[in-house]
């Protein structure tokens, strides 16, 4: 067994108050291998953060299962869940809201160890000092309060806290989207270094494709509570199979004024309300290639080739996109239509740092 995190058919519905139900996460399955970074991308409101928090058991799942290291963590009594939480930690989006303003940094880092009954006071202090060093903060940071630090430094503190219990998996919920562009690269590089050193696996939630392209091994694309495509990063950028993924990649700005983008029709309309999602394929209301079948039948994630999964009825048809069926091309291993004007990252780190 190589996966450290296995999410199976996870559902999270919220009551909307007027008797209706918000389908925030609707049957999501994914797996995360040891030492792997799986990014979760999608528009605001598609349920990425809810998915992260439901996996983290911060929201009680409506149904479905979450296994960490082969152990089920949903629907557990609080005590049993407490010990299992060690393996699964989270870095939050807003470094200004994720630290208690009244607690010193040292105390904030010690809290996980106290709660989990790890080590005597002296050992805990040593561990805190070690954590601060690992995330590149001075040792005297322990005695100070969060407001004395910048956003980037605070996010380092948040990362140190997630690291305190030696987790196997860290869910990073938009960890750099609240940061200045100038410090994003530093924090991303820190995450990359820690991953290498401790063999961490990340579930990296983001709406920023340039960041995702930089950090990911694999990418899952989410639309309105469901995953529509999962593939290795290079595969996804080179051969997007789902019309939504294509639209998403097309919409990303290209940081090169000399390349002109080809004009391709943009997605029309708004994301439908998650209280009343469309029948069948949820993307059909905005999909340029929708057919009647899409309204009747829910497309399931299907392996197109070598763990490149897509949930689209038309991905396997001939002539769906210009120049023939996407999946056929992918299956044949032929180079797909290059993304208009889009540079395929040959060296992601250099591109991302140059951009940032």
């Amino acid at each position: 067994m190589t996966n450290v995190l296995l999410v199976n058919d996870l559902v999270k519905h919220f009551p909307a108050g007027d008797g209706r139900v918000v389908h925030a996460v609707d049957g999501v399955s994914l797996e995360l291998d040891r030492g792997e970074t799986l990014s979760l991308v999608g528009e605001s409101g598609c349920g990425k953060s809810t998915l992260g928090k439901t996996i983290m058991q911060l929201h009680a799942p409506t149904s479905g299962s979450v296994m960490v290291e082969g152990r089920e963590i949903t629907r557990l009594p609080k005590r049993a869940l407490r010990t299992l939480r060690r393996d699964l930690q989270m870095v939050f989006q807003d470094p200004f809201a994720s630290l208690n303003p009244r607690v010193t940094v040292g105390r904030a880092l010690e809290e996980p160890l106290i709660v989990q009954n790890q080590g005597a006071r002296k050992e805990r202090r040593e561990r805190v000092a070690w954590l601060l060093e690992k995330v590149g903060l001075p040792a005297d940071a322990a005695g100070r309060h969060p407001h004395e630090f910048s956003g980037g430094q605070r996010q380092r503190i948040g990362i140190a806290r997630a690291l305190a219990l030696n987790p196997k998996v860290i869910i990073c919920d938009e960890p750099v989207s609240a940061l200045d562009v100038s410090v994003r690269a530093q924090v991303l590089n820190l995450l990359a270094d820690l991953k290498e050193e401790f063999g961490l696996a990340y579930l990296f939630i983001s709406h920023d494709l340039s960041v995702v392209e930089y950090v990911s091994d694999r990418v899952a694309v989410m639309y309105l509570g469901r995953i529509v495509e999962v593939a290795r990063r290079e595969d996804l950028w080179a051969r997007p199979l789902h019309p939504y993924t294509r639209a998403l990649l097309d919409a990303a700005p290209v940081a090169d004024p000399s390349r002109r983008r080809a004009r391709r029709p943009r997605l029309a309309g708004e994301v439908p309300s998650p209280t009343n999602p469309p029948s069948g394929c949820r993307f059909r209301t905005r999909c340029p290639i929708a057919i009647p079948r899409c309204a009747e039948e829910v497309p399931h994630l299907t392996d197109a080739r070598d763990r490149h999964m897509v949930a689209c009825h038309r991905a396997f048809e001939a002539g769906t996109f210009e120049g023939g069926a996407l999946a056929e091309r992918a299956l044949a291993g032929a180079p797909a239509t290059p993304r208009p004007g889009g540079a395929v990252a040959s060296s992601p780190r250099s591109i991302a740092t140059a951009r940032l």
Partner: protein
Amino acid sequence: MNGILSFARRFARNRAALAGVLVLLFVGAMALSAPFVYPSDPWDMVTMPFVWPGEDAEVWLGSDMMGRDLASGIFHGAKVSLTIGFVATLLATLFGTLVGALAGYYLGLADTLLMRVTELFQTIPQFIFAIVVVAILTPSVTNVTLAIALVSWPSVARLVRGEVLALREREFVQASRSIGMGDLRIIATQILPNALGPIIVMGSLMVATAILTEAGLAFLGLGDPNVMSWGSIIGAGRDALRSAWYITAIPGFAILLTVLALNLVGEGLNDALNPRLKNR
């Protein structure tokens, strides 16, 4: 430590609040020094009745219709008023915070039950309710304190519930849950310390209300008959209001000054503890 210093600096910038603190310190000093400055019982007749203030240096604030020293009454009364005010507020704040925190954190059934009970208490006019409670329990310092606490906790509960509702969704609370911290520990170490500002402000204003309520009860003869409070002096002096108005006016002025000071301090705390006004 730094936080306390900068808080003190912000607070000191507000001159009115500083004046309020001085008045309160003075009243507190009166209360503490009463047994030494006026060692005899304030109920003792020490001179002729109806000595006006300034007439006799021995009883500089005058005497009442029974020849009791008013100055001694004011000093000893300060102790009673402040004690009842602060203890009642402390009890109400502790209980209200407990109820509000549980309701706001757990929501659902706990919230519904606790808040309906809170509303039940809020629908009864505070002062009338306090009169009824004291009348049932018989007047004594303890019972008056309990009655005042009983009528004032609901507003604390509502305030705390609101604060907890806002704080429980904050990311640092979620972070605490994700490390496996238990609910009670989260409430005590993560949420309540961040709700302390508004609670303290409300508490300081509640002391003023409690002192007024106590005075009102004593005025109506529902104070502890064995201790002299500002309210009971006013209550006794009311019979001689036309011939010797100073008997009611002097303790009345003491109440006015103390309540005003508490309100000024409350305002000052509010400004100093409210981060949005930090740079004002």
